[in-house]
């Protein structure tokens, strides 16, 4: 079946402000979503990513490489994680994206080589 990457958009600010207690509460639905979808074979792989401030970008500039602090695109919203799902078509992929208990989700087909 075709695969799609779900990119989970996260508000770094919000996560960094949360208390231990509040973080646990916020994570709970995300964790159970993950467990269930891995169990039923929809999610094949995926990871949570550390906040965008931990990113480093290698840019190709004028034939040479430049290493810079920060993500590729700096913005208030960033990539918080991803999942690779295996579903029959886009409607199913959209349904999975809608079921994510977090924020916005980009749905993009994976190129099969």
């Amino acid at each position, binding site marked *: 079946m*075709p695969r799609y990457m779900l990119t989970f958009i996260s508000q770094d600010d919000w996560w960094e402000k949360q208390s231990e207690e509040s973080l646990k509460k916020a994570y709970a639905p995300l964790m159970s979503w993950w467990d269930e979808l891995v169990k039923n074979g929809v999610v094949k792989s995926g990871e949570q990513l550390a906040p965008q401030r931990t990113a480093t970008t290698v840019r190709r500039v004028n034939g040479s490489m430049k290493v810079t602090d920060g993500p590729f695109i700096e913005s208030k919203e960033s990539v918080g994680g991803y999942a690779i799902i295996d579903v*029959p*078509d*886009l*409607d199913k992929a*959209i349904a999975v994206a809608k079921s994510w208990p977090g924020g916005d989700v980009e*749905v993009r*087909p994976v*190129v*099969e080589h």
Partner: protein
Amino acid sequence: MRSLGDFDVAEEAVQDSLVAALEHWPRDGIPANPGAWLMTTARRKGIDRLRRETRYREKVAQLEETPMATSSMPDERLELIFTCCHPALAREAQLALTLRSVAGLTTAEIARAFLQSESTIAQRLVRAKRKIVAAKIPFRVPEGHELPDRVNEVLAVLYLMFNEGYLATGARGAMDRDLAAEAEWLTSLLARLMPDEPEVLGLLALMRFNLARADARLDSDGELVLLRDQDRAKWDRRKIDETFLLVGRFLRMRSPGVYQLQAIIAGAHADAKSWETTRWPEILRSYDSLITYGDTPVVRLNRAIALWHVDGPAAALADVDALSSELSGYHLFHATRAELLRALGRTADARAADERALELTENPAERALLARRLAGRSR
């Protein structure tokens, strides 16, 4: 009669069919970038496969030349409509694709309708089809729980199409009736295919009430006539009466919605012998309901016009002025203000508002109307 030979498409779909292409591309895994894929394939699996795939692409290109309109498969037309109007496609793409694949317009006809070049439309269609293939938008009628949102998406496309045709902005002319007629035809097809969807009936009724007034909308000089000044003898009474039967049908379904409400408003106008004897309180109540579905400045603007006839121009002007920050770029906002100011005897302010409206409208017939008003003629 084209033969698709070893491509194993459904027997009914042999004739033309974007339908077949849409159905089979995802299943056969034809990728978004056929060029790159073909090179990889040739490297891995040899020239034979490459030849077969090229032939497939030729076939598919041939299929794209003939639209769905000539097909005798009512079932598949619903799948086609929902696929063309999939939310994963941009609104412009949905419009072009629906006109091409369901209504059977040529690329040239679509280009003329939207005042764009043929190559722009052709590219738009190609990109939309590529997205359908690449993202694997399925060829299906959505399931029960998905239907409300998906039906709304289709209705939004058809409504936009109708409005583009009915009151075209830009240099085209007051009314491109062909596009409005296409939209009405498509909506009527949808109503036949989904007879129990009240919002579909609502949109159809709305379109038909509007179309019933079409002959009165332009005067003998081809200039725009406002609803209140229209010669109601020119309205198609038979069409109006038939459309009220539609209204009865959706009312009995007891599942109100925005298009049904707009149809009720249009019906209240269509039913009135004159502007003055229009059932304004009923229209006002319908706008109040509409606002609960979506509180937008334009709905509030239209409501204010009804309020004018129920509570007088001062009350209406207060409501209209409250919308100025949101609607200052909208010509009808200023045109409405002008009418209310005139009703209140504030002629200089009314004139200024008309001038602002004229600056902002591109529709030639509307421009002519506003220019005449400024020149002192009453119509």
